[in-house]
């Protein structure tokens, strides 16, 4: 569906304790995305912000970046979810025929909050919250279930961390470029067995912006528009106990929808590069299965084969992924921005040669309860 294109992207450098305010970070990426697209703020006819009251520590948190993103001047809305959902809302506004150019901005200052408390609040207040569940220990349950059901090893998960932190060395925006070994990961401090420190994404502050346009505008303003070929999103059951945590049904459904729209039948062959939401090392393996890059339970074998490395047939997370920078609300939008850079041939040292079709993916809720998948093409 070559109707909506992404014509500009921008990211801050991701770091802990960024002294910039929410608004300053949002302003930086708004300005840079406009520069990247060759537009001015007057060309933007609607905006979508992505703010979350818990992570931002205030109510109506979209107010923090309303002015910085020019949202006070044009129709606007705020999606509270991963940045990929914000991009989806932006695409909907353009597909309606009522708007021509959408600015989508997501930001997070994770270092200002207490992630364990904020993510504890996603669990049922009566039955589950008092157990102390949070993003890390609930994911530990998922990793354990995935390992035991499919025979995945901690070493295989560690390989994801080694690969992605190494990839991050070629990404100037990344928070955690690291030269580490599987042994380093395995010996790092246990946070919630079997998750260790180096299996975990960092606490990052940062923002990301993308500018989308309808086809007539995109063709006029951009020599290399990146087209949105397909989008799909889906949510699984809420209570962890209602799910088999080793399964990825919602992602399968979201991917099927996105692939159907994009006409993708054989994702491994047809997709050249993927940016997926690897909040923990094991997640990349599970998401590859859900995205149909390999069979169920074959994520471990896939990382062993080197296929998802920079020189493999399907590089996954050349940017270093979320393991190397995790500005929560912005992390999925950053996956889209990185995929766009790949397709434009502007990914510099992390460029996958000749990439023409890319996939970007975001998650929502505990243990990937919700997923949003974008297929982009040149």
């Amino acid at each position: 569906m070559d109707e909506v294109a992404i014509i500009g992207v921008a990211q801050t450098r991701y770091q802990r304790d960024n002294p910039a305010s929410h608004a300053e970070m949002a302003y930086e990426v708004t300005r840079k995305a406009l520069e990247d697209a060759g537009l001015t703020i007057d060309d933007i006819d609607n905006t979508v912000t992505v703010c979350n009251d818990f992570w931002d520590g205030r109510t109506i948190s979209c107010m923090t970046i309303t002015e910085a993103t020019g949202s006070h001047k044009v129709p606007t809305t705020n999606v509270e979810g991963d940045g990929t959902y914000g991009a989806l809302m932006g695409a909907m506004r353009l597909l309606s025929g009522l708007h021509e150019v959408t600015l989508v901005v997501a930001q997070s200052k994770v270092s200002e909050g207490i992630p364990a408390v904020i993510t504890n609040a996603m669990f049922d207040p009566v039955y589950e919250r008092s157990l102390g569940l949070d993003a890390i220990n609930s994911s530990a349950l998922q990793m354990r279930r995935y390992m035991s059901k499919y025979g995945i090893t901690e070493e295989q998960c560690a390989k994801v961390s080694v690969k992605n932190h190494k990839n991050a060395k070629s990404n100037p925006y990344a928070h955690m470029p690291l030269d580490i070994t599987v042994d380093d990961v395995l010996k790092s401090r246990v946070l919630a067995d079997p998750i260790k420190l180096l299996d975990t994404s960092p606490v990052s502050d940062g923002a990301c912006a993308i500018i989308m346009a309808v086809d007539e505008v995109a063709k006029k303003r951009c020599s290399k528009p990146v087209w949105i070929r397909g989008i799909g999103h889906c949510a699984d059951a809420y209570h962890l106990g209602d799910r088999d945590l080793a399964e990825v049904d919602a992602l399968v459904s979201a991917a099927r929808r996105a692939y159907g729209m994009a006409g993708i039948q054989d994702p491994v062959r047809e997709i050249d590069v993927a940016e997926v939401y690897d909040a923990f090392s094991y997640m990349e393996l599970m998401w590859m299965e859900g995205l149909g890059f390999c069979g169920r339970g074959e994520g471990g074998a896939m990382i062993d084969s080197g296929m998802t490395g920079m020189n493999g047939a399907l590089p996954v997370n050349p940017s270093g992924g979320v393991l190397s920078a995790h500005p929560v609300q912005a992390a999925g939008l950053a996956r889209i921005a990185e995929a766009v850079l790949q397709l434009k041939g502007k990914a510099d040292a992390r460029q996958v040669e000749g990439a023409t079709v890319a996939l970007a993916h975001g998650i929502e809720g505990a243990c990937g309860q919700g997923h949003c998948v974008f297929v982009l093409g040149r």
Partner: protein
Amino acid sequence: MKNRVGIVGVGQTHHKSKNTDCKGQELISIAVKRALESADLTMVDIDAIVIGNMDHFESINYVDMWSVDGSGGYMKPIMKVTTGGTTGSAVGHAGFYHVASGLFDTVLAIGWEQNSESDTTAAISTCFDPITEREFCGGAIGPLAAQYTAYMSKYGATEEDAALVSVRDHNNAALYNPYAHLRQTITVEEVMKSPYISYPMKLLDICPRSDGACAVIFAGEDKAKKTVERPAWILGVGDCHILVHLADGIGLANLPSLERAAREAYEMAGITDPFRQFDVAELYVPASTAGVTWMEALGLCEEGEGPRLIRSGVTNMGGELPINPSGGVLATNPIGATGLLRIGEAALQVMGKAEEKQVEGARVAVATGFGGCFWSDITVLSSSTQLG
């Protein structure tokens, strides 16, 4: 607009101050079931869901995910939209865009709030800048009071004018809306004698906070026509989130955000003479004072003419342009649902399904949302796909 969008179903809970029978997911489930029943649809027909509330009223993070058990969103596309007081109207607009985009054919929009779970004003006060503004603990009432003081001084409006709005809305709720939260008839004298909360606003001038949910089903043109005999077509939408700091100027005697949003929606819908073209209005009036002043921003009267319009009775049931037959926000305010209730109630009017509160022959309706920092959303609906 590439794809025409119609509302085919509306459902809501019986709203109350503190619903001890239901937790949030159950409130949502009741509204969803009623919306589906009203359109004779089932969850199988629903292609996607959009939901909204304000996080700090219940302290539940990722409500889109948490609500799956109540919304019916298991293994469906679902996302959350939240913009403060305008959340309900923003959720409605997001539902509209889901269908207008052509990506989804039948979409469930849900607004809900269980305000009894929190201290509403404390939660609202954290919307202001933590360094420069939060310590004033502004909440929502003070700025509205300041606005009416300025309006009274500039245009000679009175506290009694505001009381007339309060009487109109409360009595509509009491007489015509079985779902409303506050259902007692009141008099101007009772409003005037109620205690001051923030001059010139008295207890009976301001909205309650409620527990409740609302669900509205949006459908593409073909599906809408197949589903119900007379859908409520969305002819225009506008939203304007104009300010961040109150001190930047809330438009002391008017509502600039509503003016701009109305301009956008009217242009899209072809509304040129709103007072004559609208048959009924469901306005997000968080305080009776706003019911006097904001009609100007909608172009329903000239600047400063709000009091004259209210005193004349044309906005009462049976008048030329009934406003808030449902009783509006002054009677019912489950915040994340409030803006969506306006859209839902306006839709019921043009669908001819408003029952006791039906305005005879209503064909064109307007619904508004208010919140954030004096922000406005607006929706124009009609029983016809275009204005005749």
